[in-house]
């Protein structure tokens, strides 16, 4: 299968690159790999972006979204990393989701730092939440607890990792918090907290918004540098600046070694698409947190993500 796909990509790229110079690129179909199933956050982000990038790339190009779900994103990530570096395969990557496996001591078949980064699309900050009906209304209330039950998506998820790092910095590891894991996703973990399976959960801000509005959840503190709710401090303001860089990024990249001229064309198209007012309007209505970085900066984020998680490596063990 792998050989076959490599061969077929090679054949296609050979056919496409007959006498190829930069001006001929792109001409044909660009595969945009989403390493998760259709319908999720990464899928919707990619599908929202694709038509605008296609527009910027000119009339000879079609971008086709390809969902390559499996092995927690690894299958799709590996497929992108191993594809021919001709600019006709790109993918959307999860940071720190793709960093985590290595931190947890698992082997992966891609090198994130070597990928050809095209740009960062989204950056979502995290929020620490308590059940609306619980007594925990502020960060200080939480710090006073000696018995904490957390609902989370499960081992290996970015949400749990963010949660563990937060508790480590907040000094809550010492109370031995109980983690109820295994929910099918962040939303399911949120509903678990609302139901009373636990008192605390962690989520990216956009997912939590409507549950905070409805009063089902109380936000305690947010990562990042800006307040989201007027009365809720950032971790930095609360005295925990180490937690500021905890976030979830959605970035676009191709396999290592895309020729510089082609990469530049893709990067330019990405920047043009993400500054298109029509795209920004659509993205806003979908609740996306557009926060664009160019290719070089997006690549640099990979290193800082590795740095951050490496520092807290000891806190990331399996709680169960």
């Amino acid at each position: 299968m792998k050989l076959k796909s490599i061969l077929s990509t090679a054949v296609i790229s050979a056919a496409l690159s007959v006498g190829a110079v930069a001006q001929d690129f792109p001409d044909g179909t660009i595969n945009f790999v989403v390493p998760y199933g259709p319908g999720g956050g990464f899928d919707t982000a990619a599908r929202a972006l694709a038509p605008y990038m296609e527009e910027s790339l000119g009339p000879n190009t079609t971008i086709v979204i390809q969902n390559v779900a499996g092995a927690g994103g690894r299958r799709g990530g590996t497929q992108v990393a191993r594809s021919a570096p001709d600019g006709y395969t790109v993918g959307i990557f999860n940071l720190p989701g793709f960093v985590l496996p290595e931190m947890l001591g698992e082997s992966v078949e891609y090198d994130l730092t070597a990928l050809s980064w095209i740009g960062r699309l989204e950056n979502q900050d995290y929020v620490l939440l308590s059940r609306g009906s619980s007594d925990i209304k502020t960060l200080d209330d939480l710090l006073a607890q000696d018995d904490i039950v957390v609902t989370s998506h499960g081992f290996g998820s970015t949400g749990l990792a963010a949660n563990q790092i937060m508790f480590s910095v907040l000094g809550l590891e010492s109370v031995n918090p109980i983690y109820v894991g295994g929910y099918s996703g962040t939303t399911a973990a949120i509903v678990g907290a609302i139901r009373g399976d636990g008192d605390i959960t962690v989520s990216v801000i956009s997912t939590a918004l409507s549950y905070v509005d409805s009063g089902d959840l109380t936000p305690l503190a947010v990562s990042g540098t800006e307040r989201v709710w007027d009365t809720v401090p950032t971790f930095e303001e609360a005295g925990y600046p180490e937690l500021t860089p905890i976030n979830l990024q959605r970035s676009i990249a191709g396999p290592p070694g895309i020729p510089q001229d082609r990469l530049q064309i893709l990067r330019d198209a990405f920047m043009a698409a993400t500054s298109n007012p029509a795209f920004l309007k659509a993205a806003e209505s979908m609740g996306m947190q557009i926060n664009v970085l160019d290719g070089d900066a997006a690549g640099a984020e990979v290193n800082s993500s590795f740095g951050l998680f490496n520092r807290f490596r000891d806190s990331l063990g399996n709680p169960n």
Partner: protein
Amino acid sequence: MLESLNLAVNFFLADWMTIVYLMLGVLIGVLFGVIPGLGGTTAVALLLPLTFGMQPEQAITLMGGILGSSAIGGSVAAILLNAPGTAPNAATCFDGYPMTRQGKAGIAIGAAMAASSIGGLIGVAILIVVLPITKSIVLMFGPPAFFMLAVLGLTSLTVASGNLLRGLLAACIGLMIGFVGYDDLGGTQRYTFDSNFLWDGISLVPTLIGLFAIAEMIKLYVEGGAIAKDTDPTKIKLAGTSLGIKSVFSNMPTVFSGSIIGSIVGMVPGVGGTVASFLAYSFASQFTRKNNHFGSGDVRGVIAPEAANNAKDGGSLIPTLAFGIPGSAEMALFLGVLIMHGMTPGPMLLIEREWSIMVLIIALALATLMASLVVLASAKLLVIISFLNSAIIIPAVLAISLVGAYALNAHLGDVVVAVIFGFIGYMMIKFDFPRITLVIALVLGSMMERSFLQSITIFRGDWTGFFQDTTSLIIFCLVVLALAFPTVHKIRGMLAK
């Protein structure tokens, strides 16, 4: 609520394109539903880009057409080929396929269509009734309730399978297959042999394709002839669909019990239609006294699961819309469509966009009716399949099955899984092991393990917590009832003698 209903009805009447979109959705849904492995998920994924230019409610209508119709298409394949087109149709095979073998495919299809339509409408009606209290319903089902529900599923499975020992054996094998893959509670890999493919476990759809469609074709190849036995092909004209429809109206209690079970199970996120239709089937087979010949071509064995798996669509919208927790792969995709059109699922959606939800409800109701009519209109043609010679039918079904298995994830591994389970399925037919038992155990196994571990963590090791959670306690009583009923029935029978 009435105001939004009114708005929604006007939306359908205002623009004839809306009806065109709905019909498009229905036709594609039926077509993709008939082919094992393709199903509603693939159809939604294919049509998704098409909705970009539409206004949100039109996109909802198109998708509603698919969601409401794919399981109806799927029942046709289950009845004619013993190959459930979509996973929830698996229970329809029990009696649908024996009816085909007896040359009564037309009656089975007629019954399936009428039961589907009525079930779909009942499901939608229940959805409208419970819409205001969706939140409390979703919050009723925590890990303890999920665990008990899985126990109920496995219990009724054991009770329903005629041969207890073989049923238990098949269920154990199903549970063991369910262990394969990454365990995100323990953070370990089980039986994956470092293969990325096995990381996600053995998927349900290729397993179904193998166990049913491919196994059936191997059997047909060994036996020769056509699917329908002892039947004169000149009788094709007497398709008997109207007889089937009539049979539904004379078995209304079965329709109602099936629909209600379907709606309730549908509301539980993550359990899905396969369990709903199976529970409805086993309920009907247990509680039907008069002239009970379930498993060998009883029309009520088609009516109950078909009513249930269309009623569940209404119910399964509740967790999807109110909390953004999809109950199935196609619901997950549908969520994506909603988000792309700026409708973020969550507690506020039902309040802020009530009329859009009404549009979806109407689309679902109309879709079930339209899909049934489409199938009924083509029933006579479809039934011919069962009279075709094996030399024609086997290559066709095998090709479609393998393509279906591949299309699911574009992964060759799934095709291999389908083929392996084809042989396993044939052995199971040959040695008289119930295949559906294996499938249900595969579906429920991981849910049961996961929710058990979650519950024990929540209870901090105190197992009596299962009986302190109200929902879980109620389901536990149903488990006891399901176990006691056959015994009580037997004792009463002995006393009567």
